[in-house]
Protein backbone atom coordinates (compact mmCIF):
# COMPACT_ATOMS: atom_id res chain seq x y z
CA UNK A 1 0.00 0.00 0.00
CA UNK A 2 0.88 3.67 0.01
CA UNK A 3 2.32 3.41 3.49
CA UNK A 4 5.21 1.54 1.92
CA UNK A 5 6.30 4.60 -0.03
CA UNK A 6 9.25 5.61 2.07
CA UNK A 7 10.85 8.19 -0.19
CA UNK A 8 11.72 11.26 1.81
CA UNK A 9 10.77 9.82 5.16
CA UNK A 10 12.98 10.10 8.21
CA UNK A 11 14.12 6.77 9.58
CA UNK A 12 15.17 7.22 13.21
CA UNK A 13 18.47 5.71 14.27
CA UNK A 14 21.78 6.44 15.90
CA UNK A 15 24.34 5.74 13.19
CA UNK A 16 27.29 7.94 12.30
CA UNK A 17 25.21 9.42 9.49
CA UNK A 18 22.35 10.19 11.84
CA UNK A 19 24.63 12.10 14.18
CA UNK A 20 26.38 14.24 11.58
CA UNK A 21 25.71 17.96 11.33
CA UNK A 22 22.88 18.52 8.84
CA UNK A 23 24.87 21.27 7.09
CA UNK A 24 27.66 18.81 6.36
CA UNK A 25 25.17 16.26 5.09
CA UNK A 26 23.57 18.80 2.76
CA UNK A 27 26.94 19.83 1.36
CA UNK A 28 27.96 16.18 0.98
CA UNK A 29 24.71 15.41 -0.81
CA UNK A 30 25.15 18.31 -3.22
CA UNK A 31 28.70 17.13 -3.91
CA UNK A 32 27.49 13.61 -4.50
CA UNK A 33 24.77 14.80 -6.89
CA UNK A 34 27.29 16.81 -8.90
CA UNK A 35 29.67 13.90 -9.03
CA UNK A 36 27.02 11.44 -10.09
CA UNK A 37 26.42 13.64 -13.11
CA UNK A 38 30.10 14.26 -13.75
CA UNK A 39 31.13 10.63 -13.59
CA UNK A 40 32.14 9.57 -17.07
CA UNK A 41 33.59 6.11 -16.96
CA UNK A 42 32.70 2.74 -15.59
CA UNK A 43 35.47 3.00 -13.00
CA UNK A 44 33.91 6.19 -11.68
CA UNK A 45 30.51 4.53 -11.48
CA UNK A 46 32.01 1.49 -9.85
CA UNK A 47 33.57 3.62 -7.14
CA UNK A 48 30.36 5.56 -6.65
CA UNK A 49 28.42 2.33 -6.27
CA UNK A 50 31.00 1.20 -3.74
CA UNK A 51 30.68 4.45 -1.83
CA UNK A 52 26.90 4.19 -1.89
CA UNK A 53 27.00 0.64 -0.55
CA UNK A 54 29.37 1.81 2.18
CA UNK A 55 27.03 4.67 3.13
CA UNK A 56 24.06 2.30 3.19
CA UNK A 57 25.99 -0.05 5.48
CA UNK A 58 27.01 2.79 7.81
CA UNK A 59 23.51 4.27 7.97
CA UNK A 60 22.07 1.05 9.37
CA UNK A 61 18.94 1.46 7.25
CA UNK A 62 17.59 -1.91 6.07
CA UNK A 63 18.32 -2.60 2.42
CA UNK A 64 14.66 -3.56 2.03
CA UNK A 65 13.56 -0.06 2.99
CA UNK A 66 15.91 1.46 0.47
CA UNK A 67 14.74 -0.87 -2.27
CA UNK A 68 11.18 0.08 -1.46
CA UNK A 69 12.05 3.76 -1.90
CA UNK A 70 13.41 3.00 -5.35
CA UNK A 71 10.42 0.94 -6.41
CA UNK A 72 7.99 3.77 -7.23
CA UNK A 73 10.59 5.38 -9.47
CA UNK A 74 11.60 2.25 -11.31
CA UNK A 75 9.34 3.15 -14.23
CA UNK A 76 11.09 6.49 -14.75
CA UNK A 77 14.46 4.77 -14.51
CA UNK A 78 13.50 2.19 -17.10
CA UNK A 79 11.96 4.78 -19.41
CA UNK A 80 15.06 6.98 -19.31
CA UNK A 81 17.20 3.95 -19.89
CA UNK A 82 15.11 2.87 -22.87
CA UNK A 83 15.15 6.38 -24.37
CA UNK A 84 18.90 6.46 -24.18
CA UNK A 85 19.27 3.01 -25.66
CA UNK A 86 16.95 3.77 -28.55
CA UNK A 87 17.91 7.31 -29.44
CA UNK A 88 21.64 7.50 -28.87
CA UNK A 89 23.45 7.12 -32.14
CA UNK A 90 26.85 5.47 -32.30
CA UNK A 91 29.33 3.75 -34.51
CA UNK A 92 29.33 0.31 -32.92
CA UNK A 93 25.91 -0.78 -34.04
CA UNK A 94 24.64 -3.93 -32.35
CA UNK A 95 21.21 -4.16 -33.88
CA UNK A 96 19.71 -2.52 -36.92
CA UNK A 97 16.10 -3.30 -37.71
CA UNK A 98 13.73 -1.74 -40.20
CA UNK A 99 10.04 -2.37 -40.57
CA UNK A 100 8.22 -0.06 -42.97
CA UNK A 101 8.81 3.30 -41.29
CA UNK A 102 10.10 2.09 -37.94
CA UNK A 103 13.85 2.20 -37.78
CA UNK A 104 15.34 0.55 -34.71
CA UNK A 105 19.04 1.01 -34.19
CA UNK A 106 20.83 0.02 -31.02
CA UNK A 107 24.49 0.82 -30.59
CA UNK A 108 26.99 -0.06 -27.92
CA UNK A 109 27.19 3.63 -27.04
CA UNK A 110 23.43 3.83 -26.64
CA UNK A 111 23.36 0.73 -24.50
CA UNK A 112 26.09 2.04 -22.22
CA UNK A 113 24.47 5.47 -22.15
CA UNK A 114 21.21 3.89 -21.04
CA UNK A 115 22.85 1.87 -18.32
CA UNK A 116 24.73 4.95 -17.12
CA UNK A 117 21.58 7.02 -17.04
CA UNK A 118 19.75 4.36 -15.04
CA UNK A 119 22.69 4.09 -12.66
CA UNK A 120 22.75 7.85 -12.25
CA UNK A 121 19.13 8.06 -11.21
CA UNK A 122 19.42 5.08 -8.89
CA UNK A 123 22.57 6.48 -7.26
CA UNK A 124 20.87 9.85 -6.85
CA UNK A 125 17.88 8.34 -5.09
CA UNK A 126 19.87 6.09 -2.81
CA UNK A 127 22.56 8.65 -1.96
CA UNK A 128 20.24 11.51 -1.12
CA UNK A 129 18.06 9.08 0.81
CA UNK A 130 20.83 7.58 2.88
CA UNK A 131 22.88 10.72 3.47
CA UNK A 132 20.02 13.15 3.84
CA UNK A 133 16.35 12.30 4.06
CA UNK A 134 16.49 8.94 5.87
CA UNK A 135 19.09 9.96 8.41
CA UNK A 136 18.13 13.58 9.03
CA UNK A 137 14.98 14.59 10.83
CA UNK A 138 12.98 17.22 8.93
CA UNK A 139 13.71 19.77 11.65
CA UNK A 140 17.46 19.22 11.40
CA UNK A 141 17.20 19.36 7.66
CA UNK A 142 15.54 22.73 7.45
CA UNK A 143 17.77 24.04 10.21
CA UNK A 144 20.73 23.08 8.08
CA UNK A 145 19.26 24.64 4.95
CA UNK A 146 18.43 27.83 6.77
CA UNK A 147 21.93 28.13 8.20
CA UNK A 148 23.57 27.36 4.89
CA UNK A 149 21.45 29.94 3.08
CA UNK A 150 21.63 32.55 5.83
CA UNK A 151 24.18 34.69 3.94
CA UNK A 152 21.50 35.24 1.30
CA UNK A 153 19.24 36.84 3.90
CA UNK A 154 21.63 39.77 3.95
CA UNK A 155 20.72 40.64 0.39
CA UNK A 156 17.04 40.48 1.22
CA UNK A 157 16.06 36.96 0.26
CA UNK A 158 13.36 35.43 2.51
CA UNK A 159 15.53 32.53 3.64
CA UNK A 160 13.58 31.86 6.80
CA UNK A 161 10.27 31.77 4.97
CA UNK A 162 11.73 29.39 2.47
CA UNK A 163 13.07 27.12 5.20
CA UNK A 164 9.75 27.18 7.01
CA UNK A 165 7.91 26.28 3.82
CA UNK A 166 10.32 23.42 3.24
CA UNK A 167 9.96 22.05 6.74
CA UNK A 168 6.18 22.29 6.57
CA UNK A 169 6.11 20.55 3.20
CA UNK A 170 8.37 17.78 4.48
CA UNK A 171 6.45 17.52 7.68
CA UNK A 172 3.22 16.90 5.82
CA UNK A 173 4.44 14.29 3.37
CA UNK A 174 3.82 11.39 5.76
CA UNK A 175 0.55 12.96 6.92
CA UNK A 176 -0.65 13.27 3.37
CA UNK A 177 0.33 9.69 2.60
CA UNK A 178 -1.50 8.50 5.67
CA UNK A 179 -4.53 10.56 4.71
CA UNK A 180 -4.51 9.17 1.18
CA UNK A 181 -4.30 5.68 2.60
CA UNK A 182 -7.24 6.32 4.86
CA UNK A 183 -9.40 7.79 2.12
CA UNK A 184 -8.49 4.94 -0.21
CA UNK A 185 -9.50 2.42 2.44
CA UNK A 186 -12.75 4.26 3.01
CA UNK A 187 -13.63 4.34 -0.68
CA UNK A 188 -12.59 0.72 -1.08
CA UNK A 189 -15.06 -0.06 1.68
CA UNK A 190 -17.66 1.44 -0.62
CA UNK A 191 -16.56 -0.85 -3.40
CA UNK A 192 -14.16 1.47 -5.22
CA UNK A 193 -11.87 -0.39 -7.58
CA UNK A 194 -8.53 1.23 -8.33
CA UNK A 195 -6.76 -1.62 -10.01
CA UNK A 196 -8.93 -2.85 -12.86
CA UNK A 197 -10.55 -1.43 -15.96
CA UNK A 198 -9.05 0.69 -18.70
CA UNK A 199 -7.08 3.90 -18.28
CA UNK A 200 -10.14 6.17 -18.37
CA UNK A 201 -12.01 4.26 -15.69
CA UNK A 202 -8.90 4.10 -13.54
CA UNK A 203 -8.39 7.83 -13.72
CA UNK A 204 -12.07 8.30 -12.95
CA UNK A 205 -11.68 6.02 -9.94
CA UNK A 206 -9.17 8.51 -8.52
CA UNK A 207 -11.69 11.34 -8.26
CA UNK A 208 -13.18 10.00 -4.99
CA UNK A 209 -9.66 10.14 -3.52
CA UNK A 210 -8.39 13.40 -4.94
CA UNK A 211 -11.33 15.60 -3.98
CA UNK A 212 -11.39 14.66 -0.29
CA UNK A 213 -7.60 14.90 -0.25
CA UNK A 214 -7.65 18.38 -1.73
CA UNK A 215 -10.32 19.55 0.68
CA UNK A 216 -8.51 18.16 3.69
CA UNK A 217 -5.23 19.74 2.54
CA UNK A 218 -6.86 23.15 2.46
CA UNK A 219 -8.43 22.53 5.82
CA UNK A 220 -5.08 21.47 7.25
CA UNK A 221 -3.31 24.51 5.81
CA UNK A 222 -5.95 26.75 7.29
CA UNK A 223 -5.72 25.17 10.72
CA UNK A 224 -1.95 25.23 10.63
CA UNK A 225 -1.81 28.91 9.76
CA UNK A 226 -4.20 29.64 12.59
CA UNK A 227 -2.22 27.55 15.06
CA UNK A 228 0.99 29.31 14.06
CA UNK A 229 -0.57 32.72 14.48
CA UNK A 230 -1.96 31.72 17.85
CA UNK A 231 1.60 31.07 18.95
CA UNK A 232 2.63 34.48 17.70
CA UNK A 233 4.66 33.25 14.76
CA UNK A 234 5.78 36.28 12.81
CA UNK A 235 8.56 35.09 10.55
CA UNK A 236 12.27 34.78 11.09
CA UNK A 237 13.16 38.12 12.59
CA UNK A 238 14.58 37.80 16.09
CA UNK A 239 13.81 34.11 16.26
CA UNK A 240 16.29 32.03 18.20
CA UNK A 241 16.91 28.31 17.88
CA UNK A 242 16.36 25.80 20.62
CA UNK A 243 19.01 23.54 19.15
CA UNK A 244 22.22 25.22 18.00
CA UNK A 245 24.26 23.47 15.37
CA UNK A 246 27.91 22.78 16.18
CA UNK A 247 30.46 21.31 13.84
CA UNK A 248 32.46 18.47 15.35
CA UNK A 249 35.59 16.66 14.25
CA UNK A 250 33.53 13.80 12.85
CA UNK A 251 31.65 16.23 10.59
CA UNK A 252 34.85 17.65 9.10
CA UNK A 253 36.32 14.17 8.68
CA UNK A 254 33.21 12.95 6.89
CA UNK A 255 33.31 15.84 4.46
CA UNK A 256 37.02 15.29 3.77
CA UNK A 257 36.35 11.61 3.21
CA UNK A 258 33.59 12.33 0.70
CA UNK A 259 35.73 14.94 -1.07
CA UNK A 260 38.66 12.55 -1.31
CA UNK A 261 36.52 9.75 -2.58
CA UNK A 262 35.01 12.01 -5.19
CA UNK A 263 38.46 13.12 -6.30
CA UNK A 264 39.44 9.51 -6.88
CA UNK A 265 36.14 8.65 -8.48
CA UNK A 266 36.17 11.01 -11.38
CA UNK A 267 39.71 12.13 -11.82
CA UNK A 268 40.63 8.94 -13.75
CA UNK A 269 38.13 9.98 -16.40
CA UNK A 270 39.91 13.28 -16.82
CA UNK A 271 43.27 11.53 -16.87
CA UNK A 272 42.18 9.29 -19.70
CA UNK A 273 41.12 12.16 -21.86
CA UNK A 274 44.13 14.25 -20.90
CA UNK A 275 46.52 11.41 -21.77
CA UNK A 276 44.74 11.01 -25.07
CA UNK A 277 43.93 7.36 -24.63
CA UNK A 278 41.41 6.54 -27.32
CA UNK A 279 39.85 3.48 -28.78
CA UNK A 280 38.34 2.38 -25.48
CA UNK A 281 36.06 5.41 -25.33
CA UNK A 282 32.95 3.32 -25.47
CA UNK A 283 34.00 1.61 -22.27
CA UNK A 284 34.44 4.83 -20.37
Amino acid at each position, binding site marked *: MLKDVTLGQF*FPGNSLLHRLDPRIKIIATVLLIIVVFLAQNMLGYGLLILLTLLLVAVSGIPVK*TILKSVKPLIFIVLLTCAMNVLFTGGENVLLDLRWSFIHLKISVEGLLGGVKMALRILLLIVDTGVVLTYTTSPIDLTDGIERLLSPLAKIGLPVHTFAMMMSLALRFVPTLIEETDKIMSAQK*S*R*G*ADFSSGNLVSRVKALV*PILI*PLLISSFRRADELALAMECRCYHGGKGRTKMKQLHLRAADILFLIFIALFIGVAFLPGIHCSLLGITGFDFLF
Partner: protein
Amino acid sequence: MSEYAISFQGVSYFYGKGTPFYKKALDGVDLNIKKGMITGIVGHTGSGKSTLLQMMNGLLEPHEGQVLLFGERIGSKQMPKRKAAFTAGLVFQYPEYQLFEETVGKDIAYGPKNMGLDQGEIEVRVREAMRFVGLPESLLEVSPFDLSGGQKRRVAIAGILAMRPQILVLDEPAAGLDPKGRAEIFGNIYNYQKSTDSTVIIVSHSMDDMAKYAKELVVMHEGRPVMHDLTKKVFLQDEMLKSIGLDVPGITAVIKKLKALGVPVSEDVFTVEEARAALLPLLKGGEDHA
Protein backbone atom coordinates in the same frame (compact mmCIF):
# COMPACT_ATOMS: atom_id res chain seq x y z
CA MET B 1 -24.34 -20.70 7.64
CA SER B 2 -22.48 -20.20 10.80
CA GLU B 3 -24.17 -18.89 13.93
CA TYR B 4 -21.61 -16.09 14.05
CA ALA B 5 -21.53 -13.01 11.86
CA ILE B 6 -17.76 -12.61 12.16
CA SER B 7 -15.20 -15.08 13.43
CA PHE B 8 -11.54 -14.34 14.03
CA GLN B 9 -9.43 -17.47 14.26
CA GLY B 10 -5.91 -17.03 15.56
CA VAL B 11 -5.52 -13.68 13.81
CA SER B 12 -2.26 -11.74 14.13
CA TYR B 13 -1.20 -8.56 12.42
CA PHE B 14 2.05 -6.59 12.52
CA TYR B 15 2.96 -3.10 11.42
CA GLY B 16 6.37 -2.15 10.05
CA LYS B 17 8.01 -5.55 10.21
CA GLY B 18 11.80 -5.17 10.36
CA THR B 19 11.77 -1.40 10.97
CA PRO B 20 12.10 0.67 14.15
CA PHE B 21 8.34 1.23 13.90
CA TYR B 22 7.60 -2.48 14.41
CA LYS B 23 4.41 -3.08 16.31
CA LYS B 24 2.26 -6.09 16.94
CA ALA B 25 -1.27 -4.79 16.44
CA LEU B 26 -3.15 -8.06 16.87
CA ASP B 27 -1.79 -11.05 18.69
CA GLY B 28 -3.54 -14.36 18.05
CA VAL B 29 -7.09 -13.06 18.25
CA ASP B 30 -9.90 -15.59 18.64
CA LEU B 31 -13.22 -13.83 18.61
CA ASN B 32 -16.77 -14.68 17.57
CA ILE B 33 -19.28 -11.91 17.05
CA LYS B 34 -22.92 -12.93 17.18
CA LYS B 35 -25.55 -12.14 14.59
CA GLY B 36 -28.47 -9.78 14.97
CA MET B 37 -27.29 -7.56 17.82
CA ILE B 38 -25.12 -4.57 18.59
CA THR B 39 -21.67 -5.56 19.80
CA GLY B 40 -19.44 -2.87 21.23
CA ILE B 41 -15.66 -2.90 21.08
CA VAL B 42 -13.77 -0.84 23.63
CA GLY B 43 -10.10 -0.48 24.33
CA HIS B 44 -7.31 1.96 24.73
CA THR B 45 -5.76 3.82 21.81
CA GLY B 46 -3.42 1.33 20.19
CA SER B 47 -5.16 -1.74 21.57
CA GLY B 48 -5.80 -3.03 18.06
CA LYS B 49 -9.41 -1.93 17.60
CA SER B 50 -8.91 -0.21 14.26
CA THR B 51 -6.87 -3.06 12.87
CA LEU B 52 -9.58 -5.46 13.96
CA LEU B 53 -12.21 -3.38 12.17
CA GLN B 54 -10.31 -3.18 8.91
CA MET B 55 -10.04 -6.96 8.86
CA MET B 56 -13.78 -7.39 9.09
CA ASN B 57 -14.34 -6.19 5.53
CA GLY B 58 -11.15 -7.49 3.97
CA LEU B 59 -9.23 -4.20 3.82
CA LEU B 60 -6.42 -5.75 5.82
CA GLU B 61 -5.38 -9.34 5.46
CA PRO B 62 -4.28 -11.13 8.61
CA HIS B 63 -0.62 -12.10 8.68
CA GLU B 64 -1.61 -15.19 10.64
CA GLY B 65 -4.97 -16.88 11.06
CA GLN B 66 -8.21 -16.18 9.23
CA VAL B 67 -11.35 -14.07 9.36
CA LEU B 68 -14.74 -15.57 8.53
CA LEU B 69 -17.92 -13.74 7.59
CA PHE B 70 -20.97 -15.95 8.17
CA GLY B 71 -18.68 -18.96 8.14
CA GLU B 72 -16.92 -18.11 4.86
CA ARG B 73 -13.25 -17.19 4.93
CA ILE B 74 -12.53 -13.72 3.51
CA GLY B 75 -10.54 -14.24 0.34
CA SER B 76 -12.14 -17.62 -0.42
CA LYS B 77 -14.26 -18.25 -3.50
CA GLN B 78 -17.51 -17.87 -1.53
CA MET B 79 -16.37 -14.60 0.08
CA PRO B 80 -13.96 -12.69 -2.17
CA LYS B 81 -12.65 -9.42 -0.73
CA ARG B 82 -15.00 -7.30 -2.78
CA LYS B 83 -18.00 -9.23 -1.53
CA ALA B 84 -16.63 -8.91 2.00
CA ALA B 85 -16.59 -5.11 1.59
CA PHE B 86 -20.29 -5.15 0.69
CA THR B 87 -21.18 -7.73 3.35
CA ALA B 88 -19.52 -5.85 6.20
CA GLY B 89 -20.07 -2.14 5.59
CA LEU B 90 -17.32 -0.24 7.37
CA VAL B 91 -17.83 3.36 8.48
CA PHE B 92 -14.48 4.90 9.34
CA GLN B 93 -13.81 7.49 11.99
CA TYR B 94 -14.71 10.99 10.78
CA PRO B 95 -16.27 9.54 7.62
CA GLU B 96 -17.40 13.01 6.50
CA TYR B 97 -13.86 13.60 5.21
CA GLN B 98 -14.46 11.06 2.45
CA LEU B 99 -17.39 12.87 0.85
CA PHE B 100 -16.58 13.90 -2.70
CA GLU B 101 -19.68 14.09 -4.89
CA GLU B 102 -21.56 17.21 -5.96
CA THR B 103 -24.79 16.21 -4.27
CA VAL B 104 -25.78 14.25 -1.21
CA GLY B 105 -27.77 11.83 -3.34
CA LYS B 106 -24.84 11.06 -5.63
CA ASP B 107 -22.47 10.55 -2.74
CA ILE B 108 -24.74 8.06 -1.02
CA ALA B 109 -25.22 6.31 -4.37
CA TYR B 110 -21.49 5.74 -4.83
CA GLY B 111 -21.46 2.42 -2.95
CA PRO B 112 -24.57 0.90 -4.55
CA LYS B 113 -23.29 2.05 -7.95
CA ASN B 114 -20.06 0.18 -7.37
CA MET B 115 -22.16 -2.90 -6.59
CA GLY B 116 -23.52 -2.69 -10.11
CA LEU B 117 -27.15 -2.08 -9.17
CA ASP B 118 -29.57 -0.46 -11.61
CA GLN B 119 -30.65 3.17 -11.29
CA GLY B 120 -34.11 2.43 -9.87
CA GLU B 121 -32.78 0.18 -7.15
CA ILE B 122 -30.07 2.72 -6.30
CA GLU B 123 -32.62 5.48 -5.83
CA VAL B 124 -34.75 3.31 -3.54
CA ARG B 125 -31.71 2.51 -1.45
CA VAL B 126 -30.49 6.10 -1.25
CA ARG B 127 -33.86 7.28 0.06
CA GLU B 128 -34.06 4.38 2.48
CA ALA B 129 -30.54 5.08 3.82
CA MET B 130 -31.35 8.77 4.25
CA ARG B 131 -34.43 7.82 6.25
CA PHE B 132 -32.37 5.57 8.53
CA VAL B 133 -29.95 8.36 9.41
CA GLY B 134 -32.66 10.99 9.70
CA LEU B 135 -31.81 13.15 6.68
CA PRO B 136 -34.78 14.86 4.99
CA GLU B 137 -35.22 14.13 1.29
CA SER B 138 -34.97 17.84 0.57
CA LEU B 139 -31.21 17.45 0.98
CA LEU B 140 -30.90 15.01 -1.94
CA GLU B 141 -29.71 17.66 -4.39
CA VAL B 142 -27.69 19.73 -1.92
CA SER B 143 -23.88 19.71 -1.98
CA PRO B 144 -22.57 17.70 0.96
CA PHE B 145 -19.99 20.43 1.58
CA ASP B 146 -22.72 22.92 2.45
CA LEU B 147 -23.98 20.77 5.32
CA SER B 148 -23.14 20.98 9.01
CA GLY B 149 -20.61 18.57 10.54
CA GLY B 150 -23.29 16.35 12.01
CA GLN B 151 -25.24 16.17 8.77
CA LYS B 152 -22.11 15.36 6.79
CA ARG B 153 -21.53 12.49 9.19
CA ARG B 154 -25.05 11.23 8.49
CA VAL B 155 -24.49 11.41 4.74
CA ALA B 156 -21.32 9.36 5.12
CA ILE B 157 -23.05 6.72 7.23
CA ALA B 158 -25.96 6.63 4.76
CA GLY B 159 -23.38 5.96 2.04
CA ILE B 160 -22.58 2.67 3.75
CA LEU B 161 -26.18 1.81 4.71
CA ALA B 162 -27.23 2.20 1.08
CA MET B 163 -25.18 -0.90 0.28
CA ARG B 164 -27.49 -2.81 2.66
CA PRO B 165 -24.63 -4.58 4.39
CA GLN B 166 -25.54 -7.58 6.55
CA ILE B 167 -23.01 -6.32 9.04
CA LEU B 168 -22.55 -2.65 9.86
CA VAL B 169 -19.23 -1.70 11.42
CA LEU B 170 -18.73 1.78 12.84
CA ASP B 171 -15.55 3.32 14.25
CA GLU B 172 -16.40 6.04 16.78
CA PRO B 173 -19.57 7.08 14.93
CA ALA B 174 -20.21 9.99 17.28
CA ALA B 175 -16.66 11.32 17.68
CA GLY B 176 -16.55 15.10 17.78
CA LEU B 177 -20.33 15.58 17.92
CA ASP B 178 -22.19 17.46 20.64
CA PRO B 179 -24.30 15.46 23.14
CA LYS B 180 -27.46 15.95 21.12
CA GLY B 181 -25.74 14.83 17.91
CA ARG B 182 -24.27 11.84 19.74
CA ALA B 183 -27.63 10.73 21.05
CA GLU B 184 -29.22 11.15 17.62
CA ILE B 185 -26.58 9.18 15.76
CA PHE B 186 -26.62 6.36 18.29
CA GLY B 187 -30.42 6.44 18.32
CA ASN B 188 -30.45 6.11 14.53
CA ILE B 189 -28.04 3.19 14.63
CA TYR B 190 -30.04 1.51 17.38
CA ASN B 191 -33.29 1.84 15.43
CA TYR B 192 -31.60 0.70 12.22
CA GLN B 193 -30.43 -2.46 13.96
CA LYS B 194 -33.89 -3.09 15.40
CA SER B 195 -35.75 -2.65 12.14
CA THR B 196 -33.34 -4.63 9.95
CA ASP B 197 -32.19 -7.19 12.54
CA SER B 198 -28.70 -6.87 11.10
CA THR B 199 -25.43 -7.21 12.96
CA VAL B 200 -23.89 -3.97 14.16
CA ILE B 201 -20.42 -3.48 15.60
CA ILE B 202 -19.50 -0.18 17.23
CA VAL B 203 -16.12 0.96 18.45
CA SER B 204 -16.38 3.72 21.00
CA HIS B 205 -14.54 5.30 23.88
CA SER B 206 -17.76 6.25 25.59
CA MET B 207 -18.70 3.64 28.18
CA ASP B 208 -21.97 5.48 28.73
CA ASP B 209 -22.96 4.99 25.10
CA MET B 210 -21.84 1.37 25.16
CA ALA B 211 -23.92 0.69 28.28
CA LYS B 212 -26.93 2.16 26.57
CA TYR B 213 -26.71 0.58 23.14
CA ALA B 214 -24.40 -2.44 23.03
CA LYS B 215 -25.76 -5.83 24.03
CA GLU B 216 -22.36 -7.48 24.13
CA LEU B 217 -19.01 -5.88 24.75
CA VAL B 218 -15.52 -6.85 23.63
CA VAL B 219 -12.64 -5.33 25.57
CA MET B 220 -9.38 -5.11 23.62
CA HIS B 221 -6.04 -4.79 25.37
CA GLU B 222 -2.61 -4.98 23.77
CA GLY B 223 -3.85 -6.70 20.63
CA ARG B 224 -6.07 -9.27 22.32
CA PRO B 225 -9.70 -9.44 23.38
CA VAL B 226 -9.41 -9.77 27.16
CA MET B 227 -13.14 -9.76 27.85
CA HIS B 228 -16.17 -10.62 25.76
CA ASP B 229 -19.50 -10.91 27.47
CA LEU B 230 -22.87 -9.24 27.93
CA THR B 231 -22.21 -5.53 28.45
CA LYS B 232 -23.67 -5.65 31.95
CA LYS B 233 -21.40 -8.51 32.95
CA VAL B 234 -18.33 -6.72 31.61
CA PHE B 235 -19.14 -3.58 33.59
CA LEU B 236 -19.49 -5.60 36.80
CA GLN B 237 -15.76 -6.33 36.59
CA ASP B 238 -14.70 -2.79 37.24
CA GLU B 239 -11.40 -3.76 38.85
CA MET B 240 -10.32 -5.58 35.71
CA LEU B 241 -11.40 -2.64 33.54
CA LYS B 242 -9.51 -0.18 35.69
CA SER B 243 -6.37 -2.31 35.57
CA ILE B 244 -6.22 -1.85 31.80
CA GLY B 245 -6.99 1.84 31.96
CA LEU B 246 -10.71 1.74 31.15
CA ASP B 247 -13.62 2.78 33.25
CA VAL B 248 -17.23 1.89 33.96
CA PRO B 249 -20.03 4.26 32.87
CA GLY B 250 -20.19 7.45 34.93
CA ILE B 251 -23.58 6.57 36.43
CA THR B 252 -22.30 3.14 37.54
CA ALA B 253 -19.45 4.83 39.39
CA VAL B 254 -21.94 7.11 41.17
CA ILE B 255 -24.14 4.15 42.19
CA LYS B 256 -21.08 2.32 43.53
CA LYS B 257 -20.17 5.33 45.66
CA LEU B 258 -23.75 5.46 46.98
CA LYS B 259 -23.60 1.79 47.84
CA ALA B 260 -20.30 2.33 49.63
CA LEU B 261 -22.05 5.06 51.66
CA GLY B 262 -24.64 2.53 52.76
CA VAL B 263 -27.47 3.16 50.31
CA PRO B 264 -29.17 -0.21 49.64
CA VAL B 265 -29.00 -0.19 45.85
CA SER B 266 -28.01 -2.96 43.44
CA GLU B 267 -24.68 -2.53 41.64
CA ASP B 268 -25.78 -3.47 38.15
CA VAL B 269 -26.93 -0.05 37.10
CA PHE B 270 -25.33 1.15 33.87
CA THR B 271 -27.57 3.81 32.36
CA VAL B 272 -29.23 6.91 33.70
CA GLU B 273 -32.64 5.34 33.10
CA GLU B 274 -31.73 2.30 35.17
CA ALA B 275 -30.37 4.53 37.91
CA ARG B 276 -33.62 6.45 37.95
CA ALA B 277 -35.60 3.25 38.25
CA ALA B 278 -33.36 2.03 41.06
CA LEU B 279 -33.17 5.25 43.05
CA LEU B 280 -36.70 6.69 42.81
CA PRO B 281 -38.36 3.98 44.96
CA LEU B 282 -35.67 4.52 47.59
CA LEU B 283 -36.35 8.24 47.67
CA LYS B 284 -40.07 7.64 47.92
CA GLY B 285 -39.48 5.12 50.69
CA GLY B 286 -37.45 7.73 52.51
CA GLU B 287 -40.28 10.21 52.28
CA ASP B 288 -42.70 7.73 53.75
CA HIS B 289 -40.53 7.33 56.80
CA ALA B 290 -40.14 11.01 57.28
